[in-house]
């Protein structure tokens, strides 16, 4: 095959990119249709093999675009359709951003497939599980590799479908099925915004292709007032803001930000490796990826960027607070994911795009490790998730304890693990990047981000302490042990990556390596941002603010503050759950019961939505069912037409009763009428 040619992998890849999507898709099809007959070993082989093949191609692609000297590899798979003069092709493209994300998706995905072979070894529906998992990888690849908005949207919907199928995997349990449904419906709301955003962009630029959009966006002036068409009278900047906000609605749905985050905690009903892959490492990051892809567009809209940053910050602290009182091990991690995603959105909202992507990558590593670790704990404790029953698992599950500990250090942002650098890059961008149009953004995002970091440290260490340290509180007769190699191996690989990836984020004098790596991608965005800032400065009559410095000296204060915050959280958690203050949490719950209940019930957001959205919708649906469908259509129209036909037939019965004289009367009347009409 051509793609093995080492001489020119770029050329080979131009015809082979679609295999990244096709391998897992075929794996899904084979496992889905024939899996039951193939047996466990074959199903595992096909599923893991497919993802590994995609990983290999992604790695080759990454090599080509980084060291091979090619900026972007495009493949037009086939011509899809053309509407209103806008051609849409099923096209895939690889540049540094997509290559990095692809390697994360397929690499972490591969490790999770390996983990699942042992974790799901007792489940009867294993073939279904691996089919759905492969389907997910295929859809996510399509999303990342998409060269235009519509291909990305196909992948977007595809991962939503896979998420629904996997969350409701054990569909015989009603609650789990409802969780899947909730995820899908909430996502759908976001997708509606996404679609409207796509339509706006098509209306404005007449194309959906990313390259064409980028080129078009670099030549516009945001003050220009538009002429004819649906947006006549708007300024270019205004329409772009609209499009960016609509697209962001889609991102809030997929990436679980305020107000559409409610599906993520419920999504923990699915198998734990699913939570690791979809709801930690890959699918939920699609929103961040989408905004990073369209960074050149967001740069023209300070309002949209401020919205993104603020909502990200609000979500970060809000979700972190919700995690305080949770005692389900997976729910804590779910809220943690929502909070960390908030960080990533802060990153893209303040213009620190490389930092957001870097945090995306490191988060993928340590969050996947944390979830798999939780899965290992559940596997060892007979699928129990209540951490109040755990305790002292350090002695019984050493590997899990070690890897979980490494990942917890990473997530709380303690030197020298990668999480520290990625989170800090974001926080530094938050307070250092100037914002002319919304000057309160740096302060607000930095403060909220810092509070969220403190909370992260606290609740993560709380969970760690309650689970692995101290004495066992429940299930005293049960002896837990680590999983086999298939479960422990991926845990170590992921924690190793969580440590190792710090290399890319070290603040060297020329900028962090990751930042320089992604510089060509975000150059358009940086330029547009600079121009927007200059325009703003001109309008407001202030000098253009200087670019913030990125060297170690400039970042040192931020580093120190973040480190202190993380350690404070660790200290509080140790004191309350391992140290002398063990009675305090219970006392707090007693002294302020309403406050405690508010925390424990996730601030009643679900109840609020139920009241405001779900119940009216249900009432509308019930109205439509009972009144419109059952009564109006079934009774009035369907039965009614039958009844009316009956009445008309009754009238005609009058004329056909065998009484000949009556026939004569009818004839006479008709003859008279006809005569009257024709003679008169």
């Amino acid at each position, binding site marked *: 095959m051509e793609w093995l040619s080492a001489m020119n992998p770029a050329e080979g890849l131009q015809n082979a990119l679609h295999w990244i999507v096709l391998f897992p898709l075929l794996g899904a099809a084979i496992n889905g249709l024939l899996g039951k007959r193939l047996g466990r070993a074959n199903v595992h082989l096909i599923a893991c093999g497919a993802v590994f093949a995609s990983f290999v191609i992604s790695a080759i692609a990454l090599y080509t675009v980084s060291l091979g000297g090619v900026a972007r590899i495009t493949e037009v798979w086939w011509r899809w359709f053309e509407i209103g003069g806008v051609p849409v092709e099923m096209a895939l493209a690889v540049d540094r951003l997509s290559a990095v994300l692809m390697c994360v998706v397929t690499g972490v995905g591969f490790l999770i497939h390996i983990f699942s072979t042992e974790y799901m070894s007792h489940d009867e529906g294993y073939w279904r599980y691996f089919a759905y998992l492969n389907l997910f990888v295929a859809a996510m690849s399509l999303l990342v590799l998409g060269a235009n908005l519509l291909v990305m949207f196909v992948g977007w919907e595809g991962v939503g479908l896979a998420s629904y199928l996997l969350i409701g995997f054990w569909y015989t349990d009603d609650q789990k099925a409802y969780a899947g449904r909730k995820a899908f419906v909430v996502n759908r709301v976001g997708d509606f915004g996404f679609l409207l955003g796509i339509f706006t962009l098509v209306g404005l630029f007449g194309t959906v292709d990313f390259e064409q959009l980028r080129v078009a966006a670099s030549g516009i002036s945001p003050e220009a007032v538009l002429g004819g068409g649906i947006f006549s009278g708007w300024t270019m900047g205004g329409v772009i803001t609209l499009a960016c906000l609509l697209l962001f609605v889609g991102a809030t749905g997929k990436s679980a930000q305020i107000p559409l985050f409610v599906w993520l905690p419920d999504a923990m009903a699915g198998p734990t490796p699913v939570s690791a892959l979809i709801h930690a490492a890959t699918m939920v990051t699609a929103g961040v990826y989408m905004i990073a892809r369209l960074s050149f567009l967001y740069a023209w809209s300070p309002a949209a960027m401020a919205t993104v940053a603020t909502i990200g910050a609000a979500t970060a602290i809000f979700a972190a607070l919700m995690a305080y009182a949770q005692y389900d091990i997976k729910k804590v991690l779910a809220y943690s994911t929502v909070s960390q995603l908030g960080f990533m959105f802060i990153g893209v909202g303040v213009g620190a795009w490389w930092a957001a992507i870097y945090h995306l990558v490191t988060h993928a590593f340590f969050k996947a490790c944390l979830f798999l670790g939780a899965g290992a704990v559940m596997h060892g404790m007979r699928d129990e998730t209540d951490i109040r029953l755990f305790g002292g698992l350090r002695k019984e599950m050493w590997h899990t304890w070690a890897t979980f500990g490494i990942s917890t250090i990473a997530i709380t942002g303690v030197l020298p693990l990668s999480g520290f650098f990625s989170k800090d890059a974001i926080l530094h961008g938050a307070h250092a990047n100037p914002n002319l149009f919304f000057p309160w953004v740096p302060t607000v995002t930095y403060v909220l981000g810092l509070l969220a970091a403190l909370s992260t440290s606290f609740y993560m260490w709380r969970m760690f302490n309650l689970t692995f340290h101290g004495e066992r509180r429940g299930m005293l007769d049960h002896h837990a042990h680590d999983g086999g190699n298939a479960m422990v191996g991926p845990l170590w690989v992921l924690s190793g990556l969580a440590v190792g990836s710090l290399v890319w984020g070290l603040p060297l004098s020329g900028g962090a390596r990751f930042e320089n790596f992604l510089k060509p991608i975000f150059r358009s965005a940086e330029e547009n941002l600079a121009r927007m800032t200059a325009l703003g400065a001109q309008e407001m009559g202030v000098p253009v603010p200087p670019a913030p410095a990125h060297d170690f000296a400039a970042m040192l204060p931020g580093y120190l503050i973040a480190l202190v915050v993380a350690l404070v959280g660790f200290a509080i958690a140790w004191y309350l759950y391992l140290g002398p203050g063990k009675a305090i949490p219970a006392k707090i719950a007693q002294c302020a019961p309403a406050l405690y209940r508010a925390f424990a019930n996730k601030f009643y957001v679900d109840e609020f939505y139920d009241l405001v959205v779900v119940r009216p919708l249900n009432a509308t649906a019930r109205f439509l069912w009972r009144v419109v469908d059952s009564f109006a259509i079934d009774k009035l129209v369907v039965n009614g037409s039958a009844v009316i036909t009956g009445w008309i037939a009754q009238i005609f019965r009058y004329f056909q009763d065998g009484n000949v*004289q*009556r026939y*004569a*009367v009818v004839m*006479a*009347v008709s*003859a*008279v009428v006809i*005569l*009257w009409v024709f*003679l*008169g």
Partner: protein
Amino acid sequence: MSFAPVLASLTEAWLFYPMAIVAIGGALGMIVSRNPVHGAMFLVLSFFGIASIYVLLAAELVAALQIIIYAGAIMVLFVFVIMLLNLHEDELEKPRLTLGTVLGGAAALAFWAISFMVFADLPEQGMPTDLPEGFGRVAAVGRLIFNQYLLPFESTSVLLLVAMVGAIIVAKSRI
């Protein structure tokens, strides 16, 4: 010289209207009689009136045939059958006002009224009085039916035979 034109020129109108009243009166009497025998008698009266008008129309043969066949044979046959069927007093129909009767009467009346619309454009002057010699006499009719209308004539004889046979068969109690 046929006396029809003389009659027509002198006293046609004096004869037409009374005879018309007789004809219509007889017909109406037929309709309203409860007893069918009375109705038959009224109908005979009406036929006499009609025959007189036929004479006024210079159709003497047809007038004679009307009296002989219609009033004389057909109505007698009617009365025979009525007497044969021997309806009792309580079996006679009682007058009844239903939608059917109202509609029927109204339709008949409307028909009569509409027919006036047809006569509206007919010329106002009277009928011609100078008819050709022998108009309406036996010879004139005979000349027609044995020359031009020979086929209908022969068919009518066959028809009468068939009717006779049919009537016998239908009315027999056992075939």
